């Protein structure tokens, strides 16, 4: 035989299998890490016995839970009322500067909730801007109370309506305008056709967006804490800070987990329901935008008001306090320590999340099956659950089983990985999917072994995905508040914690500079998500994801 290929020795042959244990082990390890804190919390809460159940049924607990539900429901309904008209105006009508409004109305997503709440307090609070400029000259001692339900609900509505907006816009883009025209030829006016045809067809998109808003509101810590409306997240924090009463905090967390899981379940159910068909590009070419006629200017005024209150005024107020702080010798140097803290911890988190995400992304793209499906759900759960719950669980766990890491930077980084593994996996998966298995197989056929194929082919091709995953985790970590508050080593400061503690103490000038930096960082995250989700289409920027706290 002239050929040098030798197939006879049995040791050279590989068995058939769905990937070696070398591939699966790190992926499963990452999944287990995400699962650990929440499972532990549930075990702890359930193991607490009769005492815990009694706590759950106490009047005060029910009151807090009721407040949480009320807030979530109000914000959800409110966002739908703002978002549906905006979506229709920016997709279907001849609104002047339509494209500009479409961009401007997504910007509130770039404002973290605690920054939004800080702005509200800084403007309308007892020592705020309006009191100083308008109140004092007129001799008004106190403005109407900004704290409590109205303030929290309005703030969260103005910050989270883009979730519904993007979802409904996507659905409107995909809806054949011929449907509405068919309604018109069958005897319905423009409004009648909208109500009878378009609105029912948009319902799934409104529900999907609304559920994201509900989850965002349930998980929110920043706004409710600064605006002093005691929902579950803030109650958990207060219990933890004031009394270190673990049983109560754990019981409250359990209720919050149940609520979040219910919303997630509803979301999965609403997505799973048969979605409607029917988009036709040709029909789009046929019918132009709907003329608004005399409604043009009221429509513009509506957009203007929404953008003013959700974006322009907040930025202006931040700018005012920044200038005032600089003039009042509020040294920018004080920004240095929290900025360095944020950068250090976010870089570590980004690196750790990418390392943990890669094996999971790899098994999910190359070996789809029940096990990788479960891995997907598990890692997603870390992202979907409120940050405060995950942080609290890690506190409990480390105090009991790993005391040396309690209040250490490594535990904080671990918490970030648990929280943000899912978006990192998403980014890496997207780029791994671009690498065809055929290309890897081609490398094998020309004699490269699996490691060489990985190093020379897969890695270079997927590199952009690793970079974007890292950047994404970096930016969301910089924004994160509740876990950072709970898990930071003593004396450790980040931009987010600085904004929060300065605003809760009323030092708005101090909070302004870090707050503006954070808005900038969030703006980049948002642009990134929109660019990655490609089209701001069917599910919007949140496609398959959950609002970023």
């Amino acid at each position, binding site marked *: 035989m002239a050929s040098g290929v030798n197939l006879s020795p049995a040791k050279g042959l590989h068995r058939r299998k769905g990937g070696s244990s070398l591939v699966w082990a790190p992926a499963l390890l990452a999944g287990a890490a995400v699962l650990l804190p929440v499972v532990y919390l549930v075990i702890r809460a359930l193991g607490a016995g009769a005492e815990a159940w009694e706590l759950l049924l106490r009047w005060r607990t029910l009151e807090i839970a009721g407040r949480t539900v009320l807030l979530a429901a109000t914000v959800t309904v409110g966002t739908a009322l703002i978002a549906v008209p905006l979506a229709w105006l920016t997709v279907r009508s001849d609104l002047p500067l339509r494209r500009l409004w479409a961009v401007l109305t997504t910007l509130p997503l770039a404002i973290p909730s605690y920054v939004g709440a800080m702005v509200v307090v800084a403007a309308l609070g007892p020592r705020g801007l309006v009191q100083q400029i308008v109140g004092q000259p007129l001799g008004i001692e106190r403005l109407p109370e900004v704290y409590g339900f109205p303030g929290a609900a309005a703030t969260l509505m103005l910050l989270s309506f883009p979730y519904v907006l993007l979802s409904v816009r996507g659905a409107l883009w995909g809806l054949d305008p*011929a*449907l509405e*025209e*068919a*309604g018109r*030829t069958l005897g319905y006016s423009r409004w009648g056709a909208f109500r009878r045809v378009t609105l029912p*067809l948009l319902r799934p998109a409104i529900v999907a967006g609304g559920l994201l808003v509900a989850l965002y509101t349930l998980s929110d810590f920043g706004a409710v804490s600064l605006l002093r409306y005691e929902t579950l997240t803030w109650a958990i924090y207060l219990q933890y800070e004031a009394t270190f009463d673990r049983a109560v905090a754990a019981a409250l967390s359990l209720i919050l987990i149940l609520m979040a899981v219910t919303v997630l379940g509803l979301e999965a159910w609403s997505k799973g329901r048969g979605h409607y068909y029917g988009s036709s590009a040709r029909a789009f070419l046929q019918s132009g935008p709907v003329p608004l006629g005399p409604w043009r200017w009221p429509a513009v005024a509506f957009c203007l008001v929404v953008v003013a209150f959700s974006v322009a005024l907040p930025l202006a107020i931040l700018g005012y306090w920044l200038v005032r702080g600089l003039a009042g010798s509020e040294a920018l140097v004080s920004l240095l320590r929290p900025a360095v803290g944020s950068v250090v911890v976010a870089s570590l988190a980004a690196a750790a999340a990418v390392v943990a995400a890669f094996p999971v992304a790899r098994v999910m793209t190359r070996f789809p099956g029940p096990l990788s499906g479960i891995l997907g759900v598990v890692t997603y759960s870390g992202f979907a659950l409120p940050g405060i719950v995950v942080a609290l669980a890690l506190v409990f766990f480390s105090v009991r089983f790993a005391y040396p890491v309690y209040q250490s930077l490594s535990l904080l980084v671990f918490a970030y990985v648990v929280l943000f593994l899912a978006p990192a996996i998403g980014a890496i998966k997207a780029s791994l999917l671009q690498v065809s298995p055929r290309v890897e197989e081609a490398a094998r056929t020309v004699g490269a072994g699996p490691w060489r194929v990985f190093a020379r082919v897969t890695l270079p091709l997927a590199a952009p995905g690793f970079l974007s995953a890292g950047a994404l985790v970096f930016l969301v970590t910089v924004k994160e508040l509740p876990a950072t508050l709970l898990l930071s080593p003593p004396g450790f400061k980040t931009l987010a914690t600085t904004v929060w503690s300065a605003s809760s103490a009323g030092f708005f000038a101090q909070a302004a500079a870090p707050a503006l930096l954070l808005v900038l960082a969030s703006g980049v995250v948002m642009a990134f998500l929109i660019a990655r989700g490609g089209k701001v289409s069917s599910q919007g920027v949140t496609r398959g994801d959950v609002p970023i706290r």
Partner: protein
Amino acid sequence: MCPSVELRGVTKAFPGRPLPVVDNLSLSVEEGQLMALVGPSGCGKTTTLRLIAGLEWPNGGQVLLIGQVVSDERRLLPPERRRVGMVFQEYALFPHLTVKENVAFGLRGLARPRRGERIGEVLELTGLGGLERRYPAHISGGEQQRVALARALAPDPVVVLLDEPFSNLDAELRVRVRREVRKILKEAGTTAIFVTHDQEEALFMGDKVAVMNTGRVEQMDTPYEVFQHPRTRFVAQFLGTSDFLPARPVEGGLMTELGLVPQVADSSRGEVEVMVRPDDLTLGQAEGGNGVVTSRQFLGTHYMYTVALASGTRVRVFSSHMNHLEEGTNIAVRLEPRHELVCFVGGRAVESRGIASSPQLA
């Protein structure tokens, strides 16, 4: 009695497009008539339908329904008040409503018992009995087509407009469905206008056919007339296969490359062209041929050969499926029409008369 639908010099231009999509178009459709608007894509036929439905506003001219002006450049009766039924190209069935609810959609003016009756009538007419509770996503393409038609017919419209109604169906289904649709429309006695780019469909479906090109109607007549006596070169080429032989007037007729045609035509305004269809020509012996086979297309019952003549003019000829000729074969083409041929000057048909048959054309 005024026509059901009439367009008088209607023009529609869209911003950003240099030429009007519909250009000074006039058209009328009598009650109970089925009119086919046929033309290549982009010729303005769908826009014409939308102008009639009130979904577009004309820049000039008038649209009339039963003698009433419903749009001109200043006024527009909105679509919901025109009593116009429309079947959209992708059907635009309401996906959130059942078949029955779709059909009932336009019947809100009727009292409840009368409404139920009407739904029953229309469902029976369109053969949709038994599908009332199904959703559009769960019925076949042909059934969706009929639901769209039933929905348009239910409010008893002045005219039903159908926009490429069969383009979403596969070839086999299309032939069956168009027969059904024609039968339903005829049974309902409705006036209907339908748009298609398929000449065969237009000739089959229409009582009248209007051939459109670049926003104008080139010819409007019965299917037989537009096919047999096309008024422009465009119509001749669009409906059926046509080739054109240059001809010069001689004693006893018109002389073409394939011999004398015993017809006289007015050639005062330019060179005459004689239109020939593949069935007007036959293939003779290979020896002493006047053309060369350049390609062949097997059509099952026969071949269609493309033959290049000495001058370079190409003609297409039908021949028996038993007559196998290879490309490059030298062959004789003969002109053997059994009817007068249409003559064109400058792209338009001209008056032409036959003269007593001549021995040269055996």
